[in-house]
């Protein structure tokens, strides 16, 4: 497929070429080149002669000049070649996209994909709507994972002692040393992250079987090990249950960011949203309470948010368990308990709500403390959640890591007893606390084989690196949830000489086979027997490959009954004076650092802090002022004595409202090896500043601050000292004013809070669906004659603020679809980010001292009376007859008047020609969207390229354009299905129905610009008028 892809590019005349500007310039230059040639004659004439002659002289000159220009214009534009296939492949029609089902490997959640491939190049990943796990959504990380395919810094051949070598040589060497180990019966360890692929697991087992002492060690750097361990205790089976948020009516999350980063966010978001659906026939609104110490995406969405120090989770949950048990009539598992860390009334409310909705209520805990998880299970058991909102019969395999195993392995390594270590899918030296020590120990291991596709902290220490393929080049499968078998199929020929993990293992087991055969065989023997409907294997297989998944019988250890394990209250260590509790958390984009090589993810504003390109120390405003620290001040975070580099890092401070005053929160996943590449990101000019930090990397690695002891990888709770260093580093934030209210000292009377977002509470909504509305400002009288009707289609969009979680999947989806450039840290700092789709995050202070968070996706509103259009002198932005606000790049001269005049500030200007350093990454560009050159304005086009394609395709087939035939990129990717787009003139369309919804409102409607994008009121499940939530008191 490699060559066709190449051919495709040249075949495709609309493939955006970077020299567009140059093409025009060269024309200018050529015209310019003629006139000077004519001038000398003109100037020569008058000398000596008197004036009479000069006029004619001028005529002559002009004549020649004109002739010259005319002649020059006959010359040709640079010759373009068109190179067709020699033999046309069936599947590929140049210029026509084809779609393949596959499975995302961005994380271990295993979401379903539809890969859009154009001329043999995958250019866009979309969610698979039929997929049993993800149900059509796809998160930011998943969306962005396509860029990794076109990463020119991927290893394209195996290396030995850091030098590249051939596969044969590598295999020979590895086989010989493996044989040695085999007959010396020395220990072999295979270290991986969670592997949901039955085939891969089987292959590994088969490979290890030939060794006397071999073990497959699994760990997850974002560990949920405690959940599995707890279930081992309480249910006798070490497994991760499948949480069914769609079934839950009351959800209590304890430190579990299940909408953002915890285990399977897309799946959970979809479920969560389906439990919070308003408007149409079935109106459901679950109640969600979140107990956490920092402001997480999930907490931001919660109806009730309780801010608590990590140390106090245990006590609170104990009280919860106690109350619930009482309500259930059982006797409390605890004799006496210390006073609850929050108002007792609050605990009562939570317990009662949970009990009231028993069997439909759910408590999830994100902590990695087995004790807490056991408590959690106990509560859920009492509530009858098992079998209802928690599914043990079809459990999840999305997290299998065991902290105990990795701890043991590290022990063995330090003893130097391991003979061979094979590392796949993990980067322990970077991810685990004590990485430096591990690095030393690895040197003692005779044979270290890494399957990493990059040279990272671990693979750079390995004797052999046998680079695995990108998942879009691979044949693989996955079983994220028992019974849901997903297929990953290659959509492009391998770029570079990589080899799939299972192929390598097969080769070393002495039975080399291509991955495709390995997979089919494994399915024949393992999956096919579990089929539900009887059909021949071929049909079964083809169906699976076509759909991307197949539902089969779950052969998981059947969920046992609950055996009350000794639930104890984890001791809450009193915080030592002058210390803060450290909380290490994964960012939505960066997770554990697997996104660290992806510029899109670095530039994606964090949904809460809106900061890009860095990690930072989050402090509550109170804590910050106590430390005399302002935003951007670099602070030093010291664990324990603060001795030794590993236990202290320096980061700029970031003030985070709604965070516990006793907590400092730091994001994981930064400071990774390989981020040096971003030194070259962004435009280079006089006052440009580098994207990377002083150490040449993006951010700092916080993993060393975590701890791995007695079988648990701990991210939070460690007491740290925070010291101000006196240095500064301004953060690159896309939003500099964070509150929906204007600064108090500048606020006009009554105008402090701006009516940008309409919100209300559930009871108010039930009483009056239009509650919270600021009144609709439909202009009755119009100064102008109504010259413009929209008889044909009328594209409109509605965004449900109640559904939107702010996860930012849409932002990346838009970036990929529309070739939005990456501009680098300095440009973002200067407020010149280019994202067409942004998510405005507002805080709103509450009476009780808490803070509410509002997420509002903001994109071009495609106003009917667009203020940007009237001011453009050259008609570069005008209105289409389908109601779109068109931006014509090639007509734009770049006055920026339109951007000034846009009340929503959604227009983006090309301040520079943004360099795309990695030429290979040009292959990800969408050929249906122009790559904008310097000096032109751009903005959301409502994916007009998709509209046009759908229209033409409908015309071609002589069919009407059905509702949903056109989906914008943001809409398609949204895991919460918050975005609806369609033809408002079609009364049957979903968007037309939502436009009639009483919740529907439009931002800044009073300006009478008549936006085509509307929003649905944000509704929180709270007592009417009550702010809700509470803050923990020490």
């Amino acid at each position, binding site marked *: 497929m490699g060559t066709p892809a190449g051919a495709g590019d040249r075949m495709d*005349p609309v493939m955006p070429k970077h020299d567009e500007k140059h093409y025009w310039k060269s024309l200018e230059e050529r*015209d310019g080149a003629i006139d000077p040639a004519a001038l000398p004659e003109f100037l020569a004439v008058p000398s000596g002669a008197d004036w009479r002659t000069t006029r004619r002289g001028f005529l002559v000159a002009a*004549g020649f000049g004109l002739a010259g220009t005319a002649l020059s214009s006959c010359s040709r534009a640079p010759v373009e*070649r068109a190179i*067709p*296939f020699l033999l*046309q492949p069936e599947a590929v029609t140049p210029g026509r996209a084809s779609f393949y089902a596959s499975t995302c490997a961005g994380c271990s959640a295993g979401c379903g994909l539809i890969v859009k491939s154009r001329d043999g190049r995958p250019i866009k990943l979309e969610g698979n709507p039929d997929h049993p796990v993800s149900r059509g959504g796809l998160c930011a990380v998943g969306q962005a994972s396509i860029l990794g395919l076109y990463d020119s810094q991927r290893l394209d051949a195996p290396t030995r002692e850091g030098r590249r070598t051939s596969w044969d040589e590598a295999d020979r060497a590895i086989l010989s040393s493996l044989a040695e180990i085999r007959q010396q019966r020395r220990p072999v360890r295979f270290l991986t992250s969670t592997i949901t692929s039955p085939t891969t697991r089987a292959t590994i087992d088969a490979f290890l079987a030939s060794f006397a002492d071999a073990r497959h060690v699994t760990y997850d750097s974002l560990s949920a090990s405690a959940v599995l361990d707890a279930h081992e205790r309480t249910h006798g089976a070490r497994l991760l249950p499948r949480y069914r948020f769609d079934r839950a009516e009351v959800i209590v999350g304890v430190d579990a960011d299940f909408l953002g980063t915890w285990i399977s966010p897309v799946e959970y978001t979809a479920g969560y949203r389906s439990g919070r659906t308003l408007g149409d026939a079935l109106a459901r609104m679950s109640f969600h309470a979140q107990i956490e110490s920092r402001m997480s995406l999930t907490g931001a969405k919660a109806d009730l948010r309780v801010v608590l120090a990590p140390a106090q989770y245990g006590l609170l949950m104990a009280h919860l368990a106690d109350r619930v048990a009482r309500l259930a009539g059982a006797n409390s598992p605890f004799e006496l308990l210390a006073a609850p860390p929050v108002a007792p009334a609050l605990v009562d409310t939570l317990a009662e709500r949970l009990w009231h909705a028993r069997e439909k209520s759910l408590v999830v805990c994100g902590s990695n403390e087995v004790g807490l998880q056991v408590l959690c299970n106990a509560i859920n058991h009492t509530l009858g959640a098992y079998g209802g909102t928690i599914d043990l019969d079809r459990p999840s395999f999305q997290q299998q890591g065991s902290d105990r195993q990795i701890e043991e392995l590290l022990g063995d390594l330090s003893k130097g007893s391991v003979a061979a270590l094979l590392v796949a899918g993990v980067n322990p030296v970077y991810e685990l606390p004590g990485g430096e020590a591990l690095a030393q120990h690895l040197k003692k291991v005779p044979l270290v084989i890494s399957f990493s596709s990059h040279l990272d902290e671990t693979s750079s220490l390995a004797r052999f690196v046998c680079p695995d393929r990108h998942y879009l080049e691979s044949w693989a499968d996955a079983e994220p949830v028992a019974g849901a078998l997903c297929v990953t199929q290659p959509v492009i020929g391998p770029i570079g000489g990589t080899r799939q993990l299972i192929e390598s293992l097969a080769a070393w087991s002495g039975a080399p086979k291509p991955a495709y055969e390995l997979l089919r065989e494994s399915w024949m023997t393992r999956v096919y027997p579990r089929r539900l409907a009887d059909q021949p294997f071929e049909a079964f297989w083809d169906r699976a490959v076509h759909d991307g998944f197949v539902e089969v019988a779950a052969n998981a250890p059947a969920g046992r009954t609950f055996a009350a394990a000794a639930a104890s209250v984890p001791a809450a260590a009193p915080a030592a004076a002058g210390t803060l509790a450290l909380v290490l958390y994964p960012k939505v984009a960066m997770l554990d650092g697997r996104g660290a090589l992806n510029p899109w993810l670095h530039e994606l504003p964090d949904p809460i802090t809106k900061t890009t390109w860095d990690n930072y120390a989050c402090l509550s405003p109170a804590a910050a002022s106590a430390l005399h620290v302002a935003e951007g001040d670099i602070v030093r975070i010291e664990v324990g004595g603060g001795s030794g580099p590993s236990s202290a890092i320096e980061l700029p401070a970031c003030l985070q409202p709604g965070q516990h005053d006793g907590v400092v929160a730091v994001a994981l996943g930064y400071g990774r090896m390989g981020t040096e590449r971003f030194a070259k990101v962004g435009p280079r000019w006089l006052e440009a500043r580098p994207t990377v930090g002083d150490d040449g990397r993006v951010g700092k690695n916080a993993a060393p601050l975590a701890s791995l002891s007695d079988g648990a990888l701990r991210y939070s709770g460690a007491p740290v000292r925070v010291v101000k260093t006196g240095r500064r580093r301004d953060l690159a934030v896309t939003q500099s004013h964070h509150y929906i209210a204007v600064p108090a000292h500048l606020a006009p009377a009554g105008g402090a809070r701006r009516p940008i977002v309409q919100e209300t509470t559930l009871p108010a909504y039930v009483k009056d669906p239009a509650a919270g509305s600021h009144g609709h400002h439909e202009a009755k009288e119009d100064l102008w004659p109504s010259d413009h009707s929209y008889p044909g289609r009328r594209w409109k969009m509605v965004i449900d603020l109640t559904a939107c979680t702010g996860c930012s999947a849409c932002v990346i989806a838009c970036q990929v679809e529309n070739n939005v450039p990456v501009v680098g840290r300095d440009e973002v700092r200067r407020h010149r980010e280019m994202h067409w789709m942004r998510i405005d995050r507002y805080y709103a202070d509450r009476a009780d001292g808490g803070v509410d968070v509002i997420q509002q996706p903001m994109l071009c509103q495609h106003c009917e009376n667009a203020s940007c259009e009237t001011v453009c002198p050259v008609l570069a932005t005008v209105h289409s007859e389908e109601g779109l606000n068109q931006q014509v790049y090639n007509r734009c001269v770049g006055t920026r008047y339109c951007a000034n005049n846009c009340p929503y500030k959604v227009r983006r200007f090309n301040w520079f020609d943004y360099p795309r350093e990695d030429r290979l990454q040009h292959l990800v560009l969408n050929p249906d969207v122009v790559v904008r050159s310097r000096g032109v304005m751009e903005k959301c086009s409502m994916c007009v390229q998709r509209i046009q394609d759908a229209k*033409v395709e409908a015309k071609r087939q002589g069919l009407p354009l059905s509702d949903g035939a056109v989906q914008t990129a943001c809409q398609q990717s949204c895991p919460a299905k918050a975005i609806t787009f369609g033809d408002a003139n079609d009364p049957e369309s979903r968007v037309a129905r939502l436009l009639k919804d009483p919740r529907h409102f439009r931002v800044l409607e009073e300006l009478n610009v008549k936006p085509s994008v509307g929003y649905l009121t944000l509704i929180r499940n709270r007592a009417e008028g009550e702010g809700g939530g509470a803050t923990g008191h020490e």
Partner: protein
Amino acid sequence: MNGRIVTIVLLVGTALAGTLLATRIGAVRIPGNHQGYEPAQPIAFSHRLHAGELQVQCLYCHSGAEKSRHAGIPAAGTCMNCHRVVTTAFGAVRAEDDLAKKENRKPNLLVSTELRKLYDALAVSPAGMLPIAGREPVPIAWTKIHNVPDFVYFDHRGHVASGVTCQQCHGPVETMERVRQMETLSMGWCVNCHRQVNQIGVAGKTVYASIDCVTCHY
């Protein structure tokens, strides 16, 4: 007096410039307009012969026009559908046969110079059309004639679907030995046609051709 001489000289010059202009007047055009562009192609493929004399349908080779935005240039494989058997002009074959009969020998295979290029590209031997061992096929690099700037998205599908004939934009290709750009392909040319067909329709049936910017620019 001396001025008079200068005057005469310059009058002559002006006349010269005038005539020069007159001769090149046809070539006066806005930069970027390549009307009349007629480059040589790697293989001297004759549309007159194929589309004209032999009546091969345009869409037979340029099948993309129906289902993709690009009409596309046929793969060499498509040529082989016929040229597996036809290796040179029919007349030449006939003559060779007669000659062979006269000299009573087996007529030997004639391959036209242009078609040889095709076979070379595919690395097959004209005799038996079998791949030549150790020879890599090399794709044929045709020269694009109808170019629009990169910021213009023209889509063949819609036009073919609504019955616009190929000749309307590409001219009487079936009469061209070497293909030549007939129209200016300027924006005005497109827009005016779109305006026109909204009035008079295409091939009798009424159509709607939008003149929105986003019809072509996005």
